[in-house]
């Protein structure tokens, strides 16, 4: 093999890479939390008996799932800075790439979480909702106290799998030159002329983290004792 490896630029740049990893994790966590809350709202809307709510949720979910994430991110990097400067009187030079990335990922992931949560809700037997209503709970109470807790339990593995996908997808903030973990690795590699080592290192780190998490999901998926 002709290529001579030189890993020496990695130890020195570890703090910079760790900062990048923090950005990746911050985006992942924000998108996860917002995505689950807004996704639950969308899922409930999609199953609601009010037609306009149903149409809105279906339109939202289908639109976001049909468009590539790269394109969604480009949209948000275009629109969000303009909205922010219009409404909050920010100076045009302010760096709002992080805010754009957070909003973009959160709204994009909501569409995927909405589908997982809808499937989870539909996996709860109809009798549960009927029994809750018969006991005098309102529809909202029945959803919150009876259906959703069971639905959430059923879909933990799928939600975690989607979280792994989300963590991998955060590398796409590269299109806005935001320094997440991958962006940081690329920058260091580009600066030192050691792109080969840094990209392989980044790949290895992603692999270890995602592989460990996916093993955890498999453990969770093992059927538990049913009461």
């Amino acid at each position, binding site marked *: *093999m002709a290529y001579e490896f030189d890993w020496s630029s990695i130890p020195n740049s570890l703090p910079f890479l760790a900062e990048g990893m923090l950005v990746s994790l911050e985006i992942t966590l924000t998108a996860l939390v917002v995505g689950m809350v807004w996704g639950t709202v969308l899922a409930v809307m999609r199953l609601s008996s009010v037609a306009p709510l149903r149409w809105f949720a279906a339109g939202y979910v289908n639109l976001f799932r049909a*468009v590539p*994430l790269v394109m969604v991110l480009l*949209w948000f990097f275009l629109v969000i800075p303009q909205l922010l400067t219009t409404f909050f009187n920010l100076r045009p030079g302010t760096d709002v790439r992080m805010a754009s990335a957070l909003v973009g990922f959160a709204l994009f992931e909501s569409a995927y979480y909405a589908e997982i949560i809808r499937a989870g809700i539909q996996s709860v037997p109809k009798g549960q909702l009927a029994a809750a209503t018969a006991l005098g709970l309102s529809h909202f109470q029945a959803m919150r106290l009876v259906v959703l807790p069971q639905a959430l339990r059923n879909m933990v593995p799928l939600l975690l799998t989607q979280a792994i996908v989300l963590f991998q997808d955060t*590398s796409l903030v590269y299109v806005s030159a935001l320094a997440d973990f991958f962006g940081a690795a690329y920058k260091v590699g580009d600066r030192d002329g050691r792109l*080969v080592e840094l*990209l392989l290192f980044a790949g290895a780190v992603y692999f270890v983290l995602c592989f460990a998490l996916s093993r955890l999901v498999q453990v969770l998926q093992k059927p538990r004792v049913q009461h």
Partner: protein
Amino acid sequence: MSYQWNWAVFTQPSAVGDGGTYGDWMVAGLKMTVSVSLSAWIIALVVGCLMGVLRTVPSKGLQRLATGYVELLRNIPLLVQLFIWYFIIPELLPTRWGDAIKQLAPETQQFGAAVICLGLFTSARVCEQVRAGIQSLPIGQTRAALALGLSLPQAYRFVLLPMAFRLVVPPLTSEFLNIFKNSAVCSTIGLLELAAQGRQLVDYTAQPYESFIAVTLMYLLINVIVMALMHLLERKVKVPGYMGS
């Protein structure tokens, strides 16, 4: 906001003087997205089916090999894989091969890396669907085939695969849609597909909304067409007596 809408931008001749209009750029981008995705899909199907079969054969070694392949490709982000194919593989190959690759036209290098990367990335997902399809068949089918004197390859060829392939068509639809969406990632290595043409148009015309709306609509169009075609295929290969397939 005082944005000047100008939809006529797509009929204007482009500033680089290539004789085409900005609308032609969009069409070129659409063609590139479709050709990259379809080429990658062929790789994904061939490698995915092969690996899917390996994951189910009664040999621990082959199973491990296929499992390792799937885990490796599923746990590294697509963007990282793409950069590895584009920037790193030519460096790691023997010098002669690497130099030969680097002497190709940049467009060819980008196209090649994009197709190989997307194809293998998707093959890991196809593999899991094919494996699930084969494993959903009753174990009695394999045993009956072997008891009738078929060899294992024959059992796969004549009994298991014809059935499994028909069962995996619906789940493969979403993978097929994904390959078109994932092809947008290839704009990062400079491949001039749809998303890249859209950004380039913004740089030249400063009409971001028209450009992004056009690109988004084209992705929606691809989505609708693929779904319609796959729906036809699903109806054609449906196995009578199976629910939802």
